């Protein structure tokens, strides 16, 4: 009897981009699992490798300038070993993807119907009439009013929220067991953001898909996710169920992120908390030692591990490096 496998398993994934003759890893040894009926959030600042992770799973990188190592296991297949033809059977059929910018991610010259229906053409035997019915069903599912009419429209004729619903409908077309949503709400108004998030939670309830939700918005995480992986500089630095992470954050980066959420300012002296510095660029990223150390210089150097690894500090709660044990915010006592 084989071991029960997760819906999607990412093992030691490394994605390197070519600069001249050298490859620099934007995703560095990331391992993840996604279960059925689960929303796994991946959080981190811009440039920490979240989106690269998503596109690596989909195999969308240009092989000339990227080098991908490791495994992405889906249904006992390592997707990274597949040729384009086989990969195309997985894309859109088993894994659907939702992108950030709802205007840019739709082809301006194609009607809504054609863009949704295109996904059905390659993965199903539905005839024209059945496809039409399915597109209508999808548009209804994602809450688009007057679908009969909207499907004849072009993307520029719809609002941002509507366009994102269409993007979601495209991802859902073939009822994929895995959905990867790359910052699906970032480009939208706050009110629309809430609607889109509700929609995604509803869809997940209905379909039982596993969703990887990539975001930099901890509010989004708290509202939707079941499990959270915090990424920093290409690595996962903390991973925990959502309640555990918010109640009991450990890694200095996670704590800094949570601390920098704007809260109600009580008096004029209250300031917004920021994290020192920025995510280092790929070429300058130190590949040894704790990658977050340069941004918390007040923490003694010897509290970091020499080669930080993920430690399971309590069931299902993993933290990288040992520096969390000594971490305090700048100016506070230990």
């Amino acid at each position, binding site marked *: 009897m084989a071991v029960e496998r997760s819906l999607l398993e990412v093992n030691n994934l490394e994605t390197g981009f070519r600069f001249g003759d050298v490859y620099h890893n934007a995703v560095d040894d990331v391992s993840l699992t996604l279960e059925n009926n689960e929303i796994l959030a991946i959080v981190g600042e811009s440039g920490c490798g979240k989106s690269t992770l998503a596109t690596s799973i989909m195999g969308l990188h240009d092989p000339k300038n990227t080098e991908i190592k490791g495994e992405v296991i889906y249904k006992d297949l390592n997707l990274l070993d597949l040729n384009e033809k086989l990969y*195309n059977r*997985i894309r859109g059929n088993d894994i659907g993807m939702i992108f950030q910018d709802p205007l840019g991610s*739709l*082809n*301006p010259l194609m009607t809504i119907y054609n863009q949704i229906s295109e996904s059905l053409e390659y993965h199903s035997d539905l005839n024209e009439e059945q496809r039409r019915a399915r597109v209508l069903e999808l548009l209804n599912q994602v809450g688009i009013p007057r679908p009969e009419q909207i499907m004849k429209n*072009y993307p*520029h004729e719809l609002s941002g929220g509507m366009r994102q619903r269409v993007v979601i409908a*495209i991802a859902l077309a073939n009822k994929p067991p895995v959905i990867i949503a790359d910052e699906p709400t970032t480009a939208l108004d706050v009110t629309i953001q809430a609607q889109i998030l509700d929609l995604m939670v509803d869809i997940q309830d209905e379909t039982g898909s596993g969703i990887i939700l990539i975001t930099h918005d901890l509010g989004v995480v708290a509202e939707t996710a079941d499990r959270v992986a915090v990424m920093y500089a290409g690595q996962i630095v903390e991973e925990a169920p959502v309640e555990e992470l918010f109640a009991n954050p450990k890694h200095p980066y996670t704590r800094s992120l949570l601390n920098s959420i704007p809260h109600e300012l009580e008096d004029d002296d209250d300031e917004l908390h920021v994290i020192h510095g920025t995510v280092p660029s790929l070429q300058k990223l130190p590949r040894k030692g704790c990658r977050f150390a340069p941004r918390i210089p007040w923490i003694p150097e010897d509290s970091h591990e020499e080669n930080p690894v993920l430690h399971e500090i309590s069931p299902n709660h993993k933290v990288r490096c040992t520096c969390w044990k000594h971490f305090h915010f700048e100016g506070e006592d230990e």
Partner: protein
Amino acid sequence: MWKTIIRRVLLMIPQILILSILIFILADFMPGDPFTGLVDPNLDPAQLDAMREAYGLNDPLPVKYVRWMKNALQGDFGRSFNYQQPVTAVIAGRMGNTIRLSLLSIILTYLIGLPLGILAGRYNESILDKTVLVYNFVSFAVPIFVLALLMVWVFGYNLNWFPARGSISVNAVTQWDKWMSQLYHLLLPSITTAILGTTSIIQYLRSEIIDAKVSDYVKTARSKGVPIQKVYTKHIFRNASLPIASGFGFTIVSLFTGSIFIEKIFTYRGMGYLFLQSINTRDYSVIFVLALFYGFLGLIGTLLSDVILMAVDPRIRID
């Protein structure tokens, strides 16, 4: 859309009117007149002046303009001094040649430009792309008369593959022979025009394709599982061809006006050749009508470009 087109056509009337006044004034600025250097130098100046008077050349400019306009509205565009024929007849006799030249040039331009642009864009940074780029830089940098003379010298004179001058052979008797002879004479000038015309098409297509390749809608298409070949044909090429499609109107116009030099160098008797000849002989009525015609083409080209753009890009609505 029809409303827009009709309105734009109506708008052309005042535009052409203004253009005609400008050309009339500019033509009048040219030193000399049709009799300069043509008539017997021993002729009595008084007699010459009487001839000028008879042809209305001594009248003030506004009078000449109004007279011309009146006749033009009745379909009489004046007579050519040079040919002693109605201007319309002179131009009509040359138009066929120029249209043939322009048509073949357009076809060759797109036949060369589209595949090269598509290949360079799709396989950018490859050897092929770099070769196309070198071709493009050269064809962009070489002036039309240098390339044309080079073509005449190499393929017309040295290799003797093509006729280097003229538009038809005098030996062609049957209709079929005439057509073939015309086509044969067309090849060298139209290839030359096409080589120069491909530059912008290749450059636009290439850079649009390179941009489109990394666009989000292409990522969406690929994440739907659309095979890469289909992604190119259904998504990338369509979007990348927008500037080419909208430039089509201008391309046609530039081929007509560009043929002025080509026709001169290849001694190809079309409208461009006639234009230069008329300028040399101060054949006002012909210059005027031709300049007006080129201006009119420019207006048509702009309209054509807008209409094409409206047809291919759903985002564009010109009202």
